[in-house]
């Protein structure tokens, strides 16, 4: 595509206490895009991010950020990036403005420049009114905004976000997405981790799907979904019938237009080529196997289907609890 490369990672590896966290990751991030690292908890996303922002040294491979090596030229890299950590990394006893003033000094900015940037950033994230209140009075969403403001203070070329909407309510999530898009439109390259499929699908321009420390697939959400090919028929089977799921699965696997069958706890996901032909046959097979169906669902491939097909398991076993502080 000939686009400018902002980040180049090749063969990154990291081992913690004998366990491999990241295992030979190679990818590129292009300038001006929102790049997502998607995967379940413990997949190695945050470790990868920490290597790129110079907080961890890789045990294998190397990475450059805007042409600077993240180990040998860590200081140059730190000048060019902004970081928004996963935890609400906020000092409860400082005001929002004091956070930003502190960071201004850590980036060695003159006071006047810091003040100018603070005014601008507070307006951008909509935090002007509360800027002089102690951070402990902030709501979860406001803390996240302050986090984002802190990441923006250095005027970064690349902004790194670690799980930017983890545990936020729906409105705050949408607002954060909106900010992130606006930042990209201003020319900032965004690298983020997420374990939310909808976030990856709707926000990211390109994705790396990571599981067990390895990249399983790389591409735009629509490319990834198209790569799966065919549509998905999901069957949910009534409780007494669950013993028959395996029998039904093996019967369906033999059919010519069935590409793949994934067995779930209470049903099946069937990847098919032409649903109009497949649907009656699938129903018939269920009938023959004497499987009573509770639910039949048919849909275009979604990112969770891609994830399932690539890794053989769902990104999260249960539905995430929407915890709000």
């Amino acid at each position, binding site marked *: 595509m000939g686009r400018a490369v902002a980040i180049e990672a090749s063969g990154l590896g990291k081992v913690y206490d004998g366990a491999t966290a990241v295992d030979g990751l190679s990818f590129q991030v292009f300038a001006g895009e929102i790049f997502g690292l998607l995967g379940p908890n413990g997949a190695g996303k945050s470790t990868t991010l*920490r290597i790129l*922002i*110079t*907080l*961890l*040294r890789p045990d294998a491979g190397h990475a450059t950020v805007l042409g600077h090596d993240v180990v040998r030229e860590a*200081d140059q890299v*730190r*000048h060019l*990036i902004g*970081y928004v*950590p*996963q*935890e*609400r*990394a*906020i*000092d409860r*006893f*400082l005001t929002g403005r*004091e956070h930003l*003033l*502190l*960071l201004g*000094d*850590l*980036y*060695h900015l003159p006071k006047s420049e810091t003040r100018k940037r603070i005014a601008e950033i507070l307006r951008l994230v909509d935090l002007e009114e509360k800027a002089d209140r*102690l951070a402990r009075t902030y709501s979860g969403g406001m803390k996240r905004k302050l986090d984002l403001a*802190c990441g923006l203070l*250095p005027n970064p070329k690349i902004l790194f976000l670690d799980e930017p909407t983890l545990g936020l309510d729906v409105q705050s999530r949408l607002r954060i997405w909106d900010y992130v898009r606006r930042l990209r439109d201003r020319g900032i390259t965004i690298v983020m981790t997420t374990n939310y499929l909808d976030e990856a699908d709707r926000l990211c321009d390109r994705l790396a799907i990571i599981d067990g420390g390895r990249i399983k697939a790389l591409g735009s959400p629509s490319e990834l979904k198209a790569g799966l090919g065919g549509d998905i028929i999901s069957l949910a089977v009534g409780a007494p019938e669950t013993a028959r799921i395996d029998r039904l699965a093996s019967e369906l696997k033999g059919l010519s237009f069935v590409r793949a069958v994934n067995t779930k706890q209470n049903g099946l996901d069937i990847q098919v080529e032409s649903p109009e032909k497949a649907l009656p046959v699938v129903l018939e097979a269920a009938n023959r196997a004497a499987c009573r169906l509770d639910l039949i669902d048919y849909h275009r491939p979604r990112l969770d289907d891609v994830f399932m097909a690539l890794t053989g398991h769902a990104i999260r076993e249960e539905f995430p609890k929407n915890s709000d502080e």
Partner: protein
Amino acid sequence: MREYLQEIGALTMRWVRRLSREKFSMVFTLVQPMLFWLIFFGSLFQRAADAQVVQAPNYISFLAAGVVVMTVLNNGLAGGVDLLFDKENGFLERLLSTPIHRTSVVLSRFLFVMAITCLQILVILGVAVLFGVRPATGLSGVAVILLIGMLFGVGLTAISMAIAFSVKSHGDFFSVLGFLSLPLIFLSSALVPLSAMPAWMSVLARFNPMTWAIDAIRPLILSGWTEALPRLGMVVVIMTVFDACCLYGSARAFRRTIG
């Protein structure tokens, strides 16, 4: 160099700001529990302690040096805990993702802990004056007492930071701390002179750097320069070795965490 000072100044101001925000904690930091040792323990043992044994006009004047060093001990050992909180909630990562010199965070903490410790020592010496204990070596003696306190405090704060960087949670941190501090106090010359201790305790107490700090400060309060000077020479040597070991250990722990 200017950048380095800018970082350290800002990070140190953060600690000061935090303290000023916690009004309660600020009051209790200055009027700290160590004062109770001086006032209550000192008064309680006024008659129980033999002036012949402690070699001082009264027990409070004997105890003053011990309480000064106990303050240094408590502040020093607790000095790393805020870095642990920073590590736990991710603030430390945020700081380290900026282009600061890696030592600035730690150095700002040393500066802050030392400043607070000096203030507290002054409060203790002030209260001691109310009980009729005037340092025999006057104001210059007080300055030397502060210097000894800081010399000891640097090593202790370094130990505290090493623990902070090594433990998993602040629960662990406080368990280790609680376990360390009382034996260190009892196995020192803070409450009783070495000569009055059971033999096995006095042997152990001789290996406790706290003893050396106390035995250097005590003559500054009780007798005068001539008795203090040889002990001052000793304390400088011992503390230099002590600090060097502690700083080496904490630098290793720091590097392990930060990579």
